[in-house]
């Protein structure tokens, strides 16, 4: 995880510097906010990964000399198929149509979204999916 976290921390450092320069040369708050936000976007996951790297050390995928066998064991549980992403997507579709065309799309949209969230969560608990 070390290189991974260094990339994200690099993002944080770069935008930290640009943000400081930008603020002190323009005193413009919109752009500064975005730059600070971007800095945080790198900082939070970057330091999280670094934390885990410290605890776990190098994983097989981080080591030059790892053999394929070291990856043995359960990788992850993957769903083969699921209807819920589609239902959720159609719910989101109807929701935006409600904003453009009027409220009669709103209630079916909410219905679909809630169903999909419940259905998807139940599926995860049954199958251990991500």
């Amino acid at each position, binding site marked *: *995880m070390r*290189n*991974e976290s260094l*990339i994200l921390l*690099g*993002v944080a450092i*770069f*935008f930290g510097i*640009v943000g400081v*320069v*930008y603020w002190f*040369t*323009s005193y*413009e708050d*919109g*752009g500064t906010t*975005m730059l600070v936000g*971007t800095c945080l976007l790198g900082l939070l996951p970057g330091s999280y990964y670094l934390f885990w790297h410290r605890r776990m050390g190098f994983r*097989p*995928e*981080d*080591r*030059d*000399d*790892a*053999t*394929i*066998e*070291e*990856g*043995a*064991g*359960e*990788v*992850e*549980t*993957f*769903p*083969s*198929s*699921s*209807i*819920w*992403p*589609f239902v*959720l*997507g*159609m719910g*989101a*579709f109807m929701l*935006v*149509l409600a*904003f*453009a*065309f009027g409220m009669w799309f709103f209630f079916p949209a909410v219905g679909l979204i809630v169903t999909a969230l419940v259905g*998807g969560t139940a599926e995860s608990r049954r*199958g*251990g*999916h*991500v």
Partner: protein
Amino acid sequence: MTDVITPTTTGDGAHGPSVVGVARHEHEEHGPTGLLKWVTSTDHKVIGMSYMITSLVLFYFAGIMALVLRIQLATPSSSLVSFAQYNELFTMHGSLMLYLFAGPFAFGGLANYIVPLQVGAPDMAFPRLNALSYWLYLSGSITMMMGFLVAGGAAEFGWVAYAPLSNATNSPGVGPDIWIMALVLTGFSAIFTGVNLVATIFYLRAPGMTMFRMPIFTWNMLVTAILILIAFPVLTGALVMLFCDRHFGTHIFSVQGGGSPNLWQNLFWFFGHPEVYILALPYFGIATEIFPVFSRKPVFGYKGMVFATLSIAALSTGVWAHHMFTTGVVLLPFFSLLSLLIAVPTGIKFFNWIGTLWRGQLQFSAAMLFSIGFLFAFLMGGVTGVMLASPPIDFFTHDTYFVVAHFHQVLFGTAVFAGFAGLYYWYPKFFGRMLRENLGKWHFWLMFIGFWVTFMPQYIVGLLGMPRRVAIYPSYLGWQSYNIISTVGAFIIAASFAVLLWNLWISWRQPVPCGDNPWDAHTLEWFTTSPPPHHNYSHLPPIRSERPTWDYHHPDSPAIAHGEGRPPRGDKVLVSS
């Protein structure tokens, strides 16, 4: 329907290239079939393919709109379309090309399909989120196209929707609302795909596939994904604010209520400039995969490539305000310095591409020709881009056809040349069959010629002063002849895309099977079967350089790789394919 992926050892790890079996998916055959199978699929390959097909269809739509625009411009005062229709058409052409084709084709389509294969993963990290991305993208695209059907027509404010042009008084009607909502949907879809790619690349690599052994395509997609996570939330937020201004009485972007139209530009270009690189980097990645394979050499300057990509990404977000040179509220020196600096890593990439080709055994396949076409087009677009980055020139050419020619050379050079290079290159992987090479070459040459004929005259007519986004122009300024040439070029490009359609059709109807690895390629995706099985790999080769497949198939040609890549020993073992 759950598949637990459990790699199990079948080879002897101590001796040369061992092969590992993966216990697999007993449930596959019992799943849903037909349309339901497609709708419920969470396989990254199915989703990636759906993305590619959808975005290609939208590319053809946008191309037809471009032809209408060009016919209109061939005569100074044509009445083919009205002013309003002209505005609708260029807005939709630009929006479709940028938001619904160029980005999703590479990022949702190719990356979705190829990145998990290249790092040796069974699927994307979050398969259901991946499926959701596609459904949001599809419904966003349908929403965008619906703009033509509603009363008042589609949005007319250009792909950048500048305030105050985009407020409720200047752009009334449902068309603009639909445009905004379409981009909210596709924005979320891009963000979700970004999260997914980062997680896949960070967590699902095969053992030995260190960060600095990942193919450059995967690297570029990783950097693109991070850029998306930086830029798209800002766009989506800005769109929501715009919608509130239009409907809920807020005054975020209007002067009357104490807001500021410049804020829109500030927000928009914070997205918009990185977006240019979000559109470019994946295509750089494609070209970087193709050059080494058809030069039969490893890529030149692997690490330089990676660091160039990283610094392009960083600078691109730093330079956002250079688009506002003529609005005069920003710090000119700071931003023009950053925009000029971006030429340095871009130059490094160029140098490395040439270095890869240099003294290689070049094979001019269709994929290779398209990649070389990309080099030429991008070089031209890059040179004029550096010109535009200097404020005096920008003041002079701002909003003329010079700019139109510039961004078309860049976008067409990347998204179309490199994008179709990728299609020709990976098509055998997708289907286990070839596209017809000779038709591919026809496609290339027609497109290459049409490209220059279309866009070179636009530089000239731009320098002569012709403004962009006009449906008619004065006939006495000598602009017409250039416009006619440009229109003829557009039809040559259109003809080339008819050739592509024919190629797709004939290659489908009369298949030429090609085995798993027809190009003798380098990277991991060519190790598995074509098309890859459900969950991708039943065996993996040892990963000892950034060319594992090549090392495996050429045990005695030492991998002249970078870093430590030492060639595997030549024991013949349980072969996969």
